């Protein structure tokens, strides 16, 4: 029973499909949410999905193993910088417009 699931943590495909599903969920959140901070959280989900794919490729390749970890660490640092600047921009806009909802930021449409 369920023995076809044996070795699923040893297959690259499982990690990559997981990363793809996480990326798709993040892209849905980015496209569909109204709140600017929710959109930033969805971007974090997508960055995490890409990081998972990088780590998965590194985990199944002897020559890329340490490089993948280094690249993932650099992506994490970039994500931290992106979150800092993005949330600062959201707070600056909130101070002027008194709303965190992106569909009410219509100053350039009028």
């Amino acid at each position, binding site marked *: 029973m369920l023995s076809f699931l044996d070795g699923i943590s040893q297959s690259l495909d499982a990690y990559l*499909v997981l990363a793809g599903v996480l990326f798709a969920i993040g892209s849905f959140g980015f496209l569909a949410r109204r709140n600017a*901070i929710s959109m930033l959280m969805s971007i*974090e989900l997508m960055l995490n999905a890409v990081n*998972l794919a990088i780590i998965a490729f*590194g985990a199944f390749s002897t020559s890329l193993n*340490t490089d993948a970890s280094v690249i993932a660490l650099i992506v*994490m640092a970039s994500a931290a910088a992106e979150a800092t600047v993005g949330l600062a921009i959201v707070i600056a806009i*909130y101070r002027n417009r008194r709303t965190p909802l992106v569909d009410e930021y219509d100053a350039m449409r009028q």
Partner: protein
Amino acid sequence: MTLPETIPFLGFGWDDALFMLLAAILIGAALLVVGLRDIIRCGLAMIICFAALAGIYVIAGAPVVAAAQVLVYIGAISVLVLFAIMLTQTKAGPRELVFQTQAVPAAVLSLILAFVFAIVVGSTQWPVSTERVWTNTTDLAKKLFADYTLPFEVVSVLLLAAVIGGVFLAKRDRRDTD
């Protein structure tokens, strides 16, 4: 007492079970992040999502990245996001509409994206070994501080620029205070 090789009655190994448990937590928490009405709960679900991902990094054999995930994402970015939520949330927030009008096309598009990813992954023969490789931390440190010294320093400059830029953007203008 030693554990049996595979889980009794189910027929797969213990790390496979752990992987599937963490993957289920990861996907469920990610769905809660994009779907919940109250945004502060979205932020808390994001912490669970990051923690499950750290567990998956450990199963994938990258413990240093898992530790960095806990420190950077759970420790720093989540706290930053929660502070931003608390600074910008109004009392009417949870009662308002959560999704834009294009939510249904976005959902269809995301499903198509996930299926395309799954098909591409399933139909490609990756030129990799079939065995997991565990990351040697000493090798990782040598790589990071010898081969990747320039990116390391550039990232530190980037973080400094982000800190200064964040303070500048979020700073309240003196003339506007009332």
